[in-house]
């Protein structure tokens, strides 16, 4: 709890420092620099919401900056509306633009998203040219200048800019500490895992994008009134705006409040000083400095100065910490082993088919999963086991066939929807959210059913205790052993309160002690009422664990039954070792 309030205290301190600077600074020129620092920090923070927290690097954020500038000024010029209200309308337009741009663009993956964001400002430039607004000047208004944001006292602009910065800081902090903030970071770190943990990635990204447009539009409006006075398409939609935003956010530190503050405090004065001292003899010096800054940061500290320093401090501290940790011991006995699975059918799979180019991965696969059983899915390489899981989990849509969960048809739902209905999953290679702590990783799962951060934290703590990881709550996943990672993933899955979990090779890469611990844990999970379906190759271990086995071979269901029976089934032996082995060995005894 202390760190939560510490964040707010720090923000208040920064704002207070800003006020002090405003009062102390004398020269008009220095006030201009101060205003610029505040404004660019706010712009960097706005960009940070979509590109830092959500990890969707946008190269076109100046669209909202420009909308803020143009709408406000045009309203003053055409209707005489005060920019104080005009700003609000500009924000509304920016929000609308964010929705219209975001809807199609977030469906694009990878590099296409970045490329698309490059196009939008260019389009706006053309539109403004076409509408004839190549140069719109703010008219000088002598009566009631304050009403039109035309202050004579430079301190007023400073305070206005500081106000914008303060509001953006508050907005950022609110997002950071909310459910949306956790979800955004999960999406950024590992979108697929986030989906499997119930996060609707598209909705989260849209929310972040819209929220990031608001401060950007406000900054644009204030910038025009405080600094530029004349709006041209190039000045507000141009490359230099996004470059400056990128520099401020990237140099300072991406994905954190303090990054843009540091970036603006360092880079803006440097560039302004250079511009005023040598700018006449060397036009473009600003661009050179910004470009060089971007390159140096990408090479030496791609996350920004804040994280670099953070990393250095952390690694020094970690070296000092004790190397020994209590080993996780297998929970005392299997005394809590539940009796044979009771109850009816939880999951029904019928005639599922899935083909890829040149490969029929699954053909007419059908089976039932009964409540509270541990069902093992086995089969030789290429049998289609992971494809089956991907279909059950929602990452793939089957070509034919149906899946019913508790009687409800769930075929084709996306993973986050399935997770909300009680179907959880872990992955073959553990997919963590690397920069969240262990506890925060698990909290992402908890947010499926918990609205408030406090409640989610409580659920997460319980889940961690269930798997024996309470001591590691504040560590980062990078420092965990394979066993601990798998347990963390299990805890995260349990935090989503599932009825059924799909475990994809949970025993892979574990030592024999680790396997024992994991087996005991899975039994405990079943004991608490959760049904388990598990893919495994470590046959010896699976035979101890599973109630029933299903064998897949070349995409078809080959056999089903008790473990002892199945492994002696000649068809199964043939699938694994070949017809000739079977012929050589005859019907094996035992």
């Amino acid at each position, binding site marked *: 709890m202390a760190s939560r309030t510490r964040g707010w205290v720090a923000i208040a301190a920064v704002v207070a420092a800003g006020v002090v600077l405003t009062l102390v600074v004398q020269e008009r020129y220095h006030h201009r620099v101060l205003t610029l620092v505040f404004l660019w920090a706010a712009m960097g923070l706005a960009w940070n919401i979509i590109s830092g927290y959500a990890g969707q690097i946008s190269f076109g954020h100046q669209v909202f900056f420009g909308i803020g500038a143009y709408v406000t000024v045009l309203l003053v010029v055409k209707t005489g509306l005060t920019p104080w209200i005009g700003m609000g309308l500009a924000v509304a337009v920016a929000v609308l633009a964010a929705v219209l741009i975001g809807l199609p663009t977030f469906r694009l993956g990878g590099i296409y998203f970045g490329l698309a964001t490059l196009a939008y400002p260019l389009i706006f430039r053309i539109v403004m040219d076409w509408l004839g607004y190549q140069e719109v000047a703010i008219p000088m208004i002598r009566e009631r200048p304050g009403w039109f944001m035309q202050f004579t006292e430079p301190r007023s602009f400073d305070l206005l800019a500081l106000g914008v910065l303060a509001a953006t800081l508050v907005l950022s902090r609110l997002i950071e500490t909310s459910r949306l903030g956790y979800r955004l970071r999960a999406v950024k770190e590992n979108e697929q895992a986030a989906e499997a943990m119930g996060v609707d990635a598209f909705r989260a990204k849209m929310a972040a994008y819209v929220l990031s447009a608001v401060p950007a539009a406000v900054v644009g409006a204030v910038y025009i009134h405080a600094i530029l006075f004349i709006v041209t398409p190039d000045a507000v939609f141009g490359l230099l705006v996004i470059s400056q935003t990128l520099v401020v956010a990237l140099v300072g530190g991406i994905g954190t409040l303090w990054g843009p503050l540091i970036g603006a405090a360092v880079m803006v004065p440097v560039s302004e000083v250079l511009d005023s001292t040598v700018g006449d003899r060397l036009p473009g010096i600003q661009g050179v400095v910004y470009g060089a800054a971007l390159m140096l940061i990408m090479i030496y500290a791609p996350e920004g100065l804040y994280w670099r320093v953070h990393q250095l401090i952390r690694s020094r501290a970690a070296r000092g910490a004790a190397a020994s940790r209590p080993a996780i011991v297998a929970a005392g006995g299997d005394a809590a082993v539940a009796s044979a699975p009771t109850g009816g059918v939880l999951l029904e799979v019928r005639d599922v088919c899935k083909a890829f180019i040149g490969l029929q991965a699954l053909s007419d696969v059908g089976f039932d999963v009964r409540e509270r059983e541990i069902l093992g899915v086995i089969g030789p390489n290429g049998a289609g086991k992971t494809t089956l899981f991907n279909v059950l989990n929602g990452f793939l849509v089957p070509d034919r066939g149906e899946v019913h969960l508790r009687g409800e048809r769930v075929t084709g739902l996306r993973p986050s929807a399935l997770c909300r209905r009680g179907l959880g999953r872990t992955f073959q290679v553990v997919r963590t959210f690397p920069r969240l702590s262990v506890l925060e990783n698990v909290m992402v799962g908890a947010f499926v059913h918990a609205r408030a951060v406090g409640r989610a934290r409580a659920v997460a703590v319980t889940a961690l205790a269930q798997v024996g990881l309470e001591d590691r709550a504040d560590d980062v996943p990078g420092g965990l052993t394979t066993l601990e990672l798998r347990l963390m993933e299990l805890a995260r899955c349990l935090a989503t309160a599932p009825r059924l979990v799909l475990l994809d090779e949970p025993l*892979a*890469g574990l030592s024999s002690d680790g396997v024992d611990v994991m087996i005991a844990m899975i039994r405990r999970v079943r004991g608490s009422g959760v049904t388990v379906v598990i893919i495994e*190759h470590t046959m010896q271990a699976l*035979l101890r664990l599973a109630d029933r086995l299903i064998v897949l071979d070349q995409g078809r269901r080959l056999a089903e039954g008790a473990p002892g029976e199945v492994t002696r089934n000649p068809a*199964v*032996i043939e699938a*694994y*070792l070949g017809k000739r082995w079977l012929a*050589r*060995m005859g019907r094996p005894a035992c």
Partner: protein
Amino acid sequence: MLSISGLGVTYGGLRALTGVSLEVREGEFVTLVGPNGAGKTTLLKAISGTVTAAEGRVAYRGRDLGRMRASERAALGIAHVPEGRRVFATLSVMENLELGSYRRAARAHRAQALETVLELFPLLRARRAQLAGSLSGGEQQMLALGRGLMAQPDLLLLDEPSQGLGPRIVEQIFETIDRIRRERRLTILLVEQRVVEALELCDRGYVLETGRVVLDGGREALLADTRVQRAYLGG
């Protein structure tokens, strides 16, 4: 020729191999079998250099390969025919084969090698202008084999050539491997899931299970050993 001792590899955050030691002598045909997830592919990758070992040593002709990159190891005469074939889909069959002899030592004899390979795989001659991506699985496997042979290697690493192929093609492939073995003086390390076909070709074999060598021996001994089945199906 190839000597591996105490190899330990972590791959994808998981412990894939622990304490693996094996040997392949000049001119031998060694088979490595084991179930899915045993670490067979990781072992081959550690030899050809796309994966670095956390512990242990891989020595080729007495020389510790250490941190040598994959392209450098290929230049030494190690040819790796990867799992899933990995032919260059956007290049033609002919171009794939020509690339096989990229390493300097093989370039001089390219024309000759090409003739031999096309004679071994007449089907490739028929399809030489076709894009490799349009071939069937079995044809791609032959292309991958041919590409590997074009390097005129001293050590040939074969990773699950039967994977994803139908029984008749698999038979053809194994026949061809046998023929290659008989007609040239190559040292071969074959990794497979299909036990009998793979063991029948070899001089000696190893069985890998969850990252460790659990069994090794001569051909006949392994073929008669029921413990091999246990590695796959427990019990």
